[in-house]
C-alpha cells in the first residue's frame, strides 16, 4: 500500500500533471481519513482490455453518517506488457457536479472519507467509506479510480457517480423518461433551433425532489460540438430546448440524452458513468455519458434519441466571370440532397434575386438572368439554399445561408446597350454619277472637286469618307466649318454645309480621331455625351457610371460568354438622348466598323448586348 495524500485543489490542469503531482506527494500518511487515497498495487492480472469484465461497485447508496465496506468486483486491467507487475492506483471522491468535466477537477468531497483499501483478489477490492452526518441528501459524489502511473493512466481509468441518500427510505421510484419524438430532429451545423421533445416520464422543476430531480438533457456527438441551452421541462410529456450545433460540425448523428435520475431499485442507484482510455475532454465526457446511458438503459431513468446533424454549406467561390453573368457556387450536403437556390448580387441600390431550382450539392457555375438585374455596381454576392436532405422520415427543406462574398472586382453592369455602327464609306464602294463638292480649310478657303454623288451623300451623313486616292474627308458641319457655323456667310454658290440632305462640303483630315484617341476599326466605340457648360462630356452610361477614355467594355449577347471587347475612344452626342434608345435597352453606344459600305444597310447594327466592365 502506498501512503495517502491530502486533498487536491482544482488545478485546471491536465490529468497527467495531476497524476504526476500525486506521485510527488506519496509518503503522506494514510493513518487518518482521506477523500482520496493512493494504493500500491492493484490486484495483479494480465488483462489489457479495459472493457472486459468492467468493475462494479457496491453498495453505492450511501447515507449521511453511515460507514460502509464497499466492494469493487471486476478486473482493473493492469496487465499491459509495458507495465509488468502491480500498478499504483489512485482512488478519490470528488464533489458533484464538477463532473463531467473530468479534465478539470473540482474540490474533493468533504463529506466522504476513504480508508482500508485491500486487495482481496485479482478481481476484488474492498475499502471503507464513511459519510459525514452533515452530508446533504441528494448530493453526489464523483468517484474515480485510476492508475497513478502516467502511462497506465493513459490507457485506463474508471469512475462512478454516487448519490448521498437515505437508503433506509429510498422514497417512491422516479418516473422513467422516454422520448417519442423530437422536432426538428435534423439540424444544420451552424444554425440554432428551438427543439421540442415529446415523450413521457419527464420531471419538471416544480415536481423535482432530492431523489427525483428535474430531468436533465444533454446532446452528444462523436466529433463535433452541440450547445444546449434554455432547457425547460414544460410538463411530463414535453421538453423544449435550444440546440445549436457548431458550424464546424460534420454530418453525423447526435444523441439527445435525458437523465431523469430515477431510482430504479431500492438498493440504491448505480450510475456508472463511463471509462476512458485517453486524456479526456468535455466533448468526450459527454460522449461517455451518452454511450453509457444508451448502453445501460436499465440504469436509471435515462432515455436517448438519435437526431441528425447535417453540415450543409453553400458558398460563392468565384465571381471573376460575373461580367458574363456567371457565379461559381459550391454546395455541400449529403448525396441526394437538392434544393432551390436564391443567388443575390448586392449593388448600390439593387439586390435582384436570381432563382435556381433543384440545385444539387456540387460546385457549379450559375448563370444569372441578365435581364432581371438592373444597371448598378454590384460588390457582394450572397443568398440562400433551401436544401432538401433525403431523410427518413422525410423532412422539409433546410435553409442554408450563402455567406456574403465580396467580389474581388466590383461588377459594373449596364444591362442592355444597343450598339449601332459607324463607318467611313469608301469611294469605290459608292455609286452615282459625278457631282460637284467642295473642300474647305480652317480659314474657310473653298476648292471645288468632283465626286460620285453616292459617295458625297454617304460621307456627309456619316461624317467621314475615304476617297479612292486615300484622301480622308470630314464633313464641314462635323468639323465646325458649316454654313451656319465657323464659315457662315463664306460659302460659295452651290456649296452646302448644313442639313442632312445635300451637304457637299468637307475638310481634308489625316485620320479619324476620337475625343480621347484614334478610332480603331472594329475595336473602339463612342459613348453617350452631352455639351455641359460649353464642354463636351461623356455622361453616365445607363445612369451607372461615366466610362473613362480607354475603358474596356465586355459585350455579352446573352450566351454567358464574351462576344466582343470594345474600348472607349470617342464620344457620341447623338447616343445620349433617351428618345433614340431602342425600347427595352438601357443605353446606346456607337461602334466603329471597318466596313467600307456606302449605306447604313450595308453596315447595320451590332445589336443589343449585355454590357459590363471586365471583372477579371
Amino acid at each position: 500500500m502506498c501512503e495517502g495524500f491530502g486533498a487536491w485543489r482544482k488545478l485546471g490542469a491536465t490529468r497527467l500533471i495531476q497524476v504526476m503531482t500525486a506521485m510527488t506527494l506519496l509518503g503522506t500518511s494514510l493513518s487518518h481519513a482521506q477523500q482520496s487515497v493512493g494504493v500500491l498495487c492493484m490486484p495483479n492480472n494480465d488483462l489489457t482490455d479495459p472493457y472486459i469484465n468492467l468493475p462494479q461497485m457496491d453498495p453505492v447508496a450511501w447515507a449521511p453518517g453511515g460507514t460502509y465496506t464497499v466492494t469493487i468486483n471486476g478486473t482493473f486491467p493492469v496487465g499491459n506488457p509495458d507495465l509488468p507487475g502491480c500498478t499504483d492506483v489512485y482512488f478519490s471522491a470528488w464533489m458533484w457536479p464538477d463532473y463531467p468535466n473530468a479534465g478539470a477537477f473540482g474540490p474533493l468531497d468533504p463529506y466522504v472519507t476513504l480508508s482500508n483499501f485491500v486487495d482481496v483478489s485479482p478481481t476484488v477490492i474492498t475499502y471503507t467509506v464513511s459519510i459525514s452526518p452533515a452530508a446533504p441528501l441528494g448530493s453526489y459524489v464523483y468517484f474515480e479510480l485510476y492508475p497513478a502511473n502516467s502511462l497506465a493512466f493513459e490507457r485506463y481509468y474508471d469512475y462512478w457517480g454516487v448519490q448521498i441518500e437515505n437508503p433506509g427510505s429510498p422514497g417512491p421510484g422516479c418516473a422513467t423518461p422516454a422520448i417519442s419524438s423530437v422536432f426538428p430532429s435534423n439540424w444544420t451545423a451552424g444554425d440554432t433551433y428551438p427543439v421540442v421533445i415529446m415523450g413521457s416520464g419527464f420531471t419538471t422543476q416544480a415536481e423535482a425532489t432530492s431523489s427525483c430531480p428535474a430531468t436533465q438533457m444533454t446532446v452528444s456527438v462523436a466529433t463535433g460540438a452541440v450547445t444546449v441551452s434554455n432547457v425547460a421541462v414544460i410538463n411530463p410529456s414535453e421538453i423544449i430546448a435550444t440546440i445549436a450545433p457548431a458550424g464546424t460540425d460534420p454530418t453525423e448523428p447526435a444523441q439527445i440524452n435525458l437523465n431523469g435520475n430515477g431510482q430504479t431499485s431500492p438498493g440504491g442507484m448505480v450510475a456508472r458513468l463511463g471509462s476512458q482510455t485517453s486524456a479526456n475532454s468535455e466533448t468526450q465526457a459527454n460522449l461517455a455519458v451518452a454511450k453509457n446511458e444508451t448502453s445501460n438503459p436499465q440504469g436509471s431513468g435515462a432515455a436517448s434519441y438519435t437526431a441528425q446533424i447535417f453540415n450543409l454549406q453553400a458558398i460563392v467561390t468565384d465571381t471573376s466571370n460575373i461580367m458574363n453573368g456567371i457565379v461559381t457556387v459550391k454546395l455541400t450536403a449529403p448525396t441526394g440532397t437538392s434544393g432551390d437556390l436564391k443567388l443575390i448580387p448586392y449593388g448600390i441600390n439593387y439586390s435582384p434575386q436570381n432563382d435556381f431550382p433543384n440545385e444539387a450539392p456540387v460546385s457549379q457555375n450559375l448563370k444569372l438572368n441578365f435581364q432581371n438585374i438592373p444597371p448598378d455596381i454590384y460588390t457582394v454576392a450572397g443568398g440562400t439554399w433551401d436544401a432538401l436532405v433525403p431523410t427518413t422520415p422525410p423532412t422539409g427543406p433546410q435553409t442554408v445561408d450563402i455567406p456574403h462574398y465580396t467580389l474581388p472586382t466590383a461588377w459594373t453592369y449596364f444591362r442592355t446597350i444597343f450598339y449601332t455602327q459607324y463607318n467611313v464609306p469608301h469611294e469605290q464602294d459608292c455609286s452615282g454619277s459625278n457631282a460637284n463638292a467642295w473642300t474647305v480649310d480652317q480659314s474657310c478657303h473653298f476648292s471645288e472637286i468632283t465626286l460620285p454623288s453616292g459617295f458625297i451623300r454617304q460621307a456627309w451623313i456619316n461624317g467621314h469618307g475615304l476617297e479612292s486616292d486615300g484622301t480622308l474627308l470630314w464633313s464641314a458641319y462635323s468639323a465646325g466649318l458649316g454654313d451656319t457655323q465657323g464659315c457662315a456667310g463664306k460659302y460659295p454658290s452651290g456649296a452646302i454645309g448644313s442639313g442632312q440632305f445635300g451637304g457637299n462640303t468637307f475638310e481634308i483630315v489625316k485620320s479619324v480621331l476620337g475625343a480621347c484617341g484614334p478610332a480603331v476599326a472594329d475595336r473602339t466605340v463612342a459613348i453617350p455625351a452631352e455639351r455641359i457648360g460649353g464642354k463636351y462630356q461623356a455622361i453616365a452610361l445607363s445612369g451607372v457610371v461615366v466610362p473613362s477614355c480607354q475603358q474596356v467594355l465586355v459585350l455579352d449577347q446573352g450566351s454567358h460568354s464574351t462576344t466582343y471587347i470594345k474600348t472607349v475612344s470617342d464620344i457620341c452626342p447623338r447616343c445620349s438622348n433617351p428618345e433614340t434608345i431602342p425600347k427595352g435597352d438601357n443605353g446606346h453606344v456607337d461602334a466603329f466598323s471597318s466596313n467600307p459600305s456606302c449605306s447604313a444597310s450595308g453596315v447595320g447594327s451590332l445589336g443589343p448586348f449585355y454590357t459590363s466592365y471586365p471583372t477579371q
Partner: protein
Amino acid sequence: MTMRLRTKCDEFSAVTTARGLSSICLVFLSTLLFSSYLLAQDLANNAHIHSEVTQNGSAEMRSVSNGMFDPAHQPEVYWHDSDWDIDLINRASDEKPYEISIRSSSGSLSIVKLPQEYEQVNSIYRAPRDKAIIVEEDHTSSGAFAIVDLKQGRLIDNVGVAFSIISPDRRFILYQNWYPAEAEYYENTYHLYDTSRTPRQNVCGYRGNDPKHEYLDDGMRGFQVFPQKVGQLLCSGPEDDDDDNMGTNFTWSPDSSKIVFADVKSGVMSLILVTMPVGTSDLPKTSTYPLVGAENVCAGATDAAGEAICDYHVIQSLGWDGDTVTAVFNHRFGTKLNLTMAIPVSRFTPIGK
C-alpha cells in the same frame, strides 16, 4: 399574305387599264412575295427589329415597334384607313430607293419614290388634308420624315431629323434637328413642323449663299420652339456655351393642343410646354416651369458611382390630366427621391414673361 395579294390585284384590276394591269400586279406580286421572304428571313436571321399592328382611330397601321435600327431586316409598314391604303414597297437592294404605294378608296393608285438616303422606314401616318408622313431612320438617332401629298401622289417635303414625335391628330411633328453623329460642334434645337402648312411655310431660315431663297435647306425647317427667345422666328445660329438642350419624355396632350417635355440645364430640370397654333398663320408658344427650390428634383441625384448627375433617369414619366401636367420623378441612386407632381398649365411661364 396570299389573301392580301389577291385582294389587291383584284381590286386594282377594276380601276386600271388593261395595259397597266399586268405590270402593276407584278409589282404587287413581287413586292409582297419579297415582303414574305423578308419576314421569313428575319426569323432565320434573328433580326433585332420588330413591327406591330396598332389601331389609330379607325385606321390600322403597322410600324416598327421597338425603335431599333436594323435596316437589313426592314419589316412591313403601312397605314390603312377608309380613305387610303399607304404601303411601303420594300426594295430589292439597298442601292434602290424605297417606294410607297398609295391607293385611294376610289381605287386610284400611285407609287411614290422616297429619297435615296432612306435606309429604314419606321412608320407611315396619314396627316390632315390628305397628306402622309413617312418616318425614316438612317442610323440610330438620325433620320428624316417625308411629307407626301396623297391626292397628287407626290413627295412634297423631306426633312432630316434626329428624331420626331407626331401629334395624336398627326397635324404636328415636333423634332430634334439633325447633325452628323460625329459632329463636335452642334446644338440640339427642337422644331415644330405643321403639316397644315406648305413646305415653304415651314421654314426658319435659308442658306447664306441662297439670297433668293430658292432652296429649302432641311436643316432650317419648321418653327424653332426650343430654345426660344422672345419673338424669335428664325433658327438658332451657332451653339452657345451653355448646356446643350436635351429634351426628353415628349408627351402630347390627347387633343394635340400641347406638348410637354423635360430639359436639364446647370443641374436644374425644367418642364417645357409648347402650345400648338390653331390657324395656319398662328405660331406656337413656348412656356417653361423650372423645378427649383422645394421642387428641385435634381438635388441629391447621383449615378451608382456617387457622382452628382441629373438627366433623363430622374424623370419617370410625364402625362396629362386635363390641363394639368402630371410628372413622376425618381432617383435610382443618391437620395432615392420618389415624387409625383401635378402642375397646372397655368403655372407655366411663357417665354419672355
